[in-house]
């Protein structure tokens, strides 16, 4: 199985440790991962902000980059959701028959990271160790977009030493929403304030999620409030071992 890592432009630039964690973990599980260097962005920001024609070159680029692989794994639920739900919409609206066909063939091969572990590789215990109190925030794209269900929690529960604590109102949006946080900054901040309060009240050391974008937003709020709670992508927890702790 030829596995490609789709790091996403956001993680590539701001959260490279998440990508390294994915690579280390998959290698530890005995798989070879490739990083097609021509990859850039799925076009989510453009699509969600209404700039559809501007997203088209990115859809075409995505198909060119990843078309030849058996599996594409990405540590971002929202980008996986963009590819799965919106690339077909864009291909229908602006693409030709060939692009529609290529998108249709590629989409089923694109997996969010926890889906890839549990559904494609069939593992739940990845041999990780992380002796901390951890809260998991199901991001909207994990929960309602991809319907990851309890996959992330199953993976976290198998981590040695990890104490998983419940977040109050786990299904409520953190208020990030991409450009929403800029266009509707006040509403976003009000949602964030509720979320950071809920995170703090868990007493967790670490808040994790399957999307660094939401974590950047929540972590940014926690940092501004002087909170000691760390935010970490789920993959970094799963990559952590006794010999190589994070």
């Amino acid at each position, binding site marked *: 199985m030829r596995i490609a890592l789709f790091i996403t432009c956001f993680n590539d630039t701001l959260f*490279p440790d998440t990508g390294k964690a994915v690579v280390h973990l998959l290698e530890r599980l005995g798989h070879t991962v490739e990083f097609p260097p021509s990859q850039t962005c799925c076009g989510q920001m453009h699509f969600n902000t209404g700039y559809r024609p501007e997203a088209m070159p990115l859809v075409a680029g995505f198909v060119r980059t990843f078309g030849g692989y058996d599996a594409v794994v990405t540590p971002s639920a929202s980008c996986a959701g963009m590819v799965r739900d919106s690339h077909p919409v864009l291909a229908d609206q602006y693409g030709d028959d060939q692009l529609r066909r290529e998108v249709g063939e590629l989409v089923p091969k694109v997996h969010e990271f926890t889906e890839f572990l549990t559904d494609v590789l069939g593992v739940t215990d990845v041999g990780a160790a992380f002796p901390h109190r951890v809260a998991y925030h199901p991001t909207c794209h994990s929960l*309602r977009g991809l319907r990851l269900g309890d996959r992330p929690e199953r993976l976290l529960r198998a981590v040695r030493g990890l104490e998983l604590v419940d977040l109050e109102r786990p299904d409520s949006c953190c208020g990030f929403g991409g450009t929403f946080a800029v266009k*509707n900054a006040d509403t976003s901040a009000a949602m964030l304030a509720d979320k950071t309060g809920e995170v703090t009240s868990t007493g967790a050391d670490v808040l994790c999620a399957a999307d660094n974008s939401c974590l950047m937003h929540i972590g940014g709020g926690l940092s501004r409030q002087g909170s000691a709670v760390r935010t970490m992508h789920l993959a970094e927890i799963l990559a952590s071992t006794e010999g190589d702790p994070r």
Partner: protein
Amino acid sequence: MSGTMDGRGVVFLGSPAFPDAARTALADTRLRTNLRRATTTIRDKRLQVTGELDDWEDLRAAGEAVKRRTLRHLDVHLLRLEESVTRAGGVVHWAADAAEANRIVTELVRATGGRDDETREVVKIKSMATQEIGLNEALAEAGIAAYETDLAELIVQLADDRPSHILVPAIHLGRAEIRDLFATEMARWGRPAPEGLTDDPAALAEAARLHLREKFLRAKVAVSGANFACADTGTVAVVESEGNGRMCLTLPETLITVMGIEKVLPSWRDLEVFLQLLPRSSTGERMNPYTSMWTGVTPGDGPRAFHLVLLDNGRSDTLADTVGRQALNCIRCSACLNVCPVYERTGGHAYGSVYPGPIGAVLTPQLVGVEHAASLPFASTLCGACYDACPVKINIPEVLTHLRAEVVEAKRAGRRLPSPEALAMKAATAVLVSPARLGYAQRAAALGGRALARRGRIGRLPGPFRGWSDSRDTPAPPTESFRTWWRKNREGEQG
């Protein structure tokens, strides 16, 4: 109610834009407390009663399919409804827009004759369609008083306020405010509030009962909306709780029902789906206290004259959009409002429309034209809670992104120079189509970010990112992007 009509005849304030209106609402801490409590309560009730039905998803699928069948052949169903209602002794009127519907209703009220003081007033059942067309204001201009009889609508009317929720229009007001309002305003409209009125909800409901009863007993004309109308039988249904609907539908001599054309159902049998979906989704009850159904007129029981006004008012335009069309599935249950994290913080007034919340964000721009409501499709994080809650499976996030694209295209068409945002998006694409350019940008961002950062964190920023950075730190971009790390560590390139 102080609304203005847009060009197409939908009561819509349009200004201020959502982000500004939201800022005002967010500053009202009591409003936020009221909303948080109310939406949380309804959410829990809804989840409980929908959870009782193990085939809830099958019911949703059926509801969506019935609506699809309805909309794809709307002309056929409306003609059939017209025939059935007429056969049962009703009169059907067609209104292309708000002005026409208001004119029809006004003339019908005037034609009921009788003594002046009788015909110069109508009693009303809470109805979104008549709010949408500003019927009360139009009747007032014609010298006809329209009394809202739903408790929350009465509160809003006495306060000269605007509804802020589809189902609970006075959700933004607390009991103490309502008490004061009743004590000062009821006397101006009829029977005054009892002496020594307290803010106990039961006492307030009793005051409303007494105030409205004299209006019900003397009313000659009632105006209602409709939740459903069955094309095959001509049966119209109104779903309610208080009994004010039954009063209006039963006691007056003339009943005028204003109904959006999308409310028709192909068959009587289809009600078996919606009478399960609607109460459980809206009030979180297995069944609402009262549902009235009538077919034309029944001698000796209820009104002697029944008029059904079929209202287009932008709906056929909405129908023409094959993606946006699904917004016409809406049965006005308001489940999407109650689960929406944005609505929970801002309340309904920020949406500037009689249709607030997620459904308002997709319906209002389609009814009034996206160019007039350009901020509404962006008033969402696309979190998807509304889609999951919707009993007729309106994919609201899908319609939101669709309308965002229409807003952007409308703005593009309307200006000679691209907006700063459009330029930024174009520039982003130019960078992102090329891995090399992305690499340069990453190095630039790392340098710039580090220059701005203190201890790895970027604090407050000026310009367009002020709103973002006012409440959040941003991590400084690391010196090494992932792709650089990969090249060095997996492809053996020397740094």
